[in-house]
């Protein structure tokens, strides 16, 4: 490695990651205790010591395109053992968020999601949107029914005599919101990932961390096949010692999202293909799955919030709280919507549903910009590490 590297510290980048919870990064005095503690530190490359000095020097180019930082599950062993209280775990977490922020487009949305002062807008926009949708549904029932009949389609998916949320915000309007939104999210991720994969590969080649010279899509997909069971079993996560208790709640949340994703898709098909509108019977096994997942989501995210509160050693910044409370709110409003519906409290359940929609919007629309984006970046980085035979 005789080629010279021109250092170009970026003071703004230091400020940025400091704001994301890395306020301790400048304390590092490079003793490498973290590298000894770290279960994923390779033999000859002191991870995360090198990432720590890169962070304290503001070397954005060495961090943002660095796949290694995604292999860290923030087990906290390094932060626990750091003699200077430099908290490498929290620094890496901040760097990961900076990475999400860096690759996400459009920039203004990324900036809005990371800024606590923009939170009213993040909540307000869907709130106003769904208020309009609700108004259309409730005030324009007859007009819309006529309009839809012109196309031979039924406007209302509500059933007579039962409380149905479709009477509050039409399923058509919900899906007209979320289907394009999903497409938008996919596009944002795709654009981000394209750059991300290019960068982590370039970084790995430059630092001698891989034996691959180019990225072969087929090999990459094969690697993904190996990585997914690892993620599902939380194999890496379970190696954590200091933050061991984080593994189970994380697993609960992950599985409930997977479950709810399946449920949503099934009901989508049931509604639009088989034309059977909800609400569906509680005896339906799909409903069982939905209820279990909903409960797991609340419990899992609740536990995570509790852990963050009780863990004085771990720095929690806005990026962490935003996503945790959002997931918790999502689960809670979802379950309450169902419970109030079953209890027959019509307007209360409408209100809960309104809140639930706002929460879903936040999670969905801002997925590529929030900490939640780790689910994509981490999977890709882990896949790359497996594909590139990380050393």
């Amino acid at each position, binding site marked *: *490695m005789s*080629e*010279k*590297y021109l250092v170009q510290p970026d003071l703004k980048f230091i400020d940025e990651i400091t704001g994301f919870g890395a306020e301790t990064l400048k304390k590092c005095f490079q003793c490498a205790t973290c590298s000894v503690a770290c279960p994923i530190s390779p033999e000859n490359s002191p991870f995360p010591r090198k990432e720590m000095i890169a962070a304290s020097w*503001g070397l954005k180019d060495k961090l943002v395109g660095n796949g290694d930082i995604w292999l860290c599950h923030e087990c906290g062993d390094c932060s626990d053992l750091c003699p200077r209280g430099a908290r490498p775990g929290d620094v890496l977490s901040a760097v990961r968020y900076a990475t999400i922020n860096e690759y996400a487009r459009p920039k203004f949305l990324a900036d809005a999601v990371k800024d606590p002062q923009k939170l009213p807008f993040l909540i307000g926009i869907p709130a106003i949107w769904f208020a309009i949708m609700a108004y259309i549904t409730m005030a324009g029932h007859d007009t819309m029914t006529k309009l839809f009949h012109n196309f031979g389609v039924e406007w209302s998916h509500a059933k007579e005599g039962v409380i149905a949320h479709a009477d509050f915000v039409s399923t058509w309007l919900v899906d007209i919101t979320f289907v394009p939104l999903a497409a938008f999210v996919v596009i944002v991720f795709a654009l981000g990932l394209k750059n991300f994969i290019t960068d982590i590969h370039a970084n790995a080649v430059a630092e001698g961390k891989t034996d691959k010279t180019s990225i072969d899509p087929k090999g990459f997909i094969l690697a993904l096949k190996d990585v997914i069971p690892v993620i599902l079993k939380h194999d890496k996560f379970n190696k954590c010692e200091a933050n061991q208790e984080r593994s189970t709640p994380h697993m609960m949340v992950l599985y409930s999202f997977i479950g709810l994703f399946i449920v949503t898709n099934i009901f989508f098909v049931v509604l639009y293909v088989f034309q059977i509108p909800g609400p569906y019977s509680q005896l339906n096994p799909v409903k069982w799955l939905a209820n279990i997942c909903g409960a797991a989501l609340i419990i899992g995210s609740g536990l995570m919030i509790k852990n963050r509160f009780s863990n004085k050693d771990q720095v929690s910044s806005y990026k962490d709280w935003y996503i945790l409370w959002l997931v918790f709110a999502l689960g809670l409003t979802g379950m309450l919507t169902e419970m109030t519906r079953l209890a027959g409290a019509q307007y209360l359940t409408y209100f809960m549903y309104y809140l639930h929609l706002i929460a879903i919007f936040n999670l969905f629309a801002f997925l590529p910009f929030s900490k939640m984006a780790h689910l994509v970046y981490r999977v890709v980085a882990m896949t790359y590490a497996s594909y590139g035979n990380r050393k």
Partner: protein
Amino acid sequence: MEDLVDVVEEEGNNCTTHPFLCSNEGVARIQKDVDDGKVNAMVIGACSRRVNFDIFKFDGCIVERVNLREGVAWPHSREKYPALTEEQKDDEEHFDRIQMKAEDYIKMGMIRVEKVKLPEPYKTEKSSRKILVLGGGITGISAALDAAKAGFEVTIVEKETSLGGYAARMRSQMPVAEPFEQLISPIIDEKIAELKEYPNITVKTGTEVARIAGQPGEFTVTFKKPGEKIPFDVPFPLPPEMILDEKGNELDAEAQHAKYLEYNKGKLDILKLDPDGELYGAVILAAGWRPDRLKGDAYAHLGIDLPDVITNDEFEKIAAKGKIVRPSDGKEAKEVVFIQSPGKDEDDADFPYCGGVTSQVALKQAKYVRNDYPDGKAYIVYQHMRTPGLQENFYKSIQQDNGIFMTKGAVTEVSKAGNSLMVEAHNTLLGKDLNIKADLVVLAAGMVPVTVDDPVVNLAYRQGPGFRDNDIFGGYADSNYICFPYETQRTGVYAAGAVRRSMTIEESMEDAAGAALKAIQCIESANRGVAVHPRSGDMTFPEFFFQRCTQCKRCTVECPFGALDDDEKGTPKANPTRCRRCGTCMGACPERIISFADYTIDSIGSQIKAIGVPSEDDFDEPPFRILALVCENDAYPALDMVGMNRIDYSPDVRVIPVRCLGSVNSIWIKDALAQGMDGVILIGCKHGDDYQCHFVKGSELAEVRVNKMGDALKSLALEEERVRFEEIAIDEYDKLPGLLSDFVEEIEALGPNPFKGF
């Protein structure tokens, strides 16, 4: 025990035994005999003299302590050396080696008491309680304040026209008080102002010392304006090349003296006292440092000739004037690289005369860059980042600055790149060879003690105006950096601050207090005629039997402290308050005319003669006898520790403690061998890099003398291996038994001394 009593009584001396001599009752018994006038000299055969010295202290009595416990009973057990049975006692085959050792020690103690006198203190003619402080910087001012607060009269002499020194020329300084985190404005002005509160402090600016003559307690000091030439300017000894003739042979004494007079024309002899000189009791040397000038090939790769590559001192001057700008074009210097070590990847040494200060100065100056420019960047490339004590807090606080970047690394090149500079560093913490673009590069030049260029103290001593052996101490004014801080190689002159070691302002102020206390101790010792250090309280001093002096000057030359001057003929003139009582002069004197009241050639010589050397007339196979002359500072305590740890060594060794190996006169060795002893071992402190000698040169001189003895031994038909020189550190007691046993084995292999029995 009874046999030991017999040894004493055979000599006609009284002997009393007590099972617990250091108890109140035991001591009271001795005291009673002293009070009754029955006893004024005694030999106490008990524990080592290194313990209970305060208990066995009887005023007006000569007390000799015979080390029967640590020296005999503890190291040598009866299990290993059983007592003789009745039949064995007179069979000429068996002998009791430990009993023999104890008996020898008692005899040696008795003879010493006979040979020594009670010392009487030396009093100087005049006596001054004033303290002279050389240097009006932070250290000098602090020392003056500390001494003045203790009630002493102080004079500060400063060469410059104003006080303050370097401390007055800085923009900011490192913290000096809790919480030790932030830069502070220089505190020197407060200190200068404080001087006015003390009427017992006199300040002489624009003044330097022409000469300091005499000795501690009565130094006669002549002042002058810097650069002035006056008769009381101190004469310098001839430089080495001038004492040789054209052929390279050394000139004789007379020719040398003539040359010396010519060389120092217009200057009065050192022995001439200035009648108008001021009298001082002690001197504090706080002359400080000068910034090092980095020149030469060793630094060529650092671009030292480029205008924007400057030293930390030059940077400080720019900073004191205003914002940090480049010397080349006056442009703002926003990206500055501080280089702490010359690097080149060959070794990790810092610049010469560096230390913790240069690390901290880099931190301080990096902060200047950040204070001047919010978008400024300061890089520090170091091999060592030294922030001792609470300055660690300062380091931590500087580290928190987002625009200060530090890495360990070796700087391989500084070169011009367009309008700026490029610094290349190898082996950095970033794991790569780095290039750093810089507007300005700052090199951490060291703090050269001013005594490197100039004696400063200008002592009117025969050995010369400065300190002779500063090279042992890396050029700093010191005499034993481990045990005796502030002590220079001249008694009565105490160094503080950067002249002693590179120091921060905080350290210098603390150091000043130490030197002030030493100066006070010196005054309070000189006026009572006792030694200051390391033999604090010793009242003896070298006495000369001049009738036999051959004016060989060996004593004058070899004294590590320049205590001896000589007159035109070369007759030594002792200055007792300069003396540290090591006895190096006594060891040097070929005529053996130098002695101390309780430490003489004869007292040790007689002890050696008192050692019984059994021959074949006594036993069929007589035991060997080895003499060990052991330095009392480190080696003797180490030997006591061997005893305390009950580690056995050959009981045929007889140990005599000496003040310093420098005081060992070769006659003792010759006498020992002439009386049939089989070998002599000298054990002293380490010299060289791992330097520990308490008297600077003692063990080194002893080694030279031992090596020179080889020929003399050969002329006696003796093997030179019979005399050995060894060094030991105080914590290496575990090595001593092996070292002694090896020597004894070697001697046994050589066979007995042929002179035995004569």
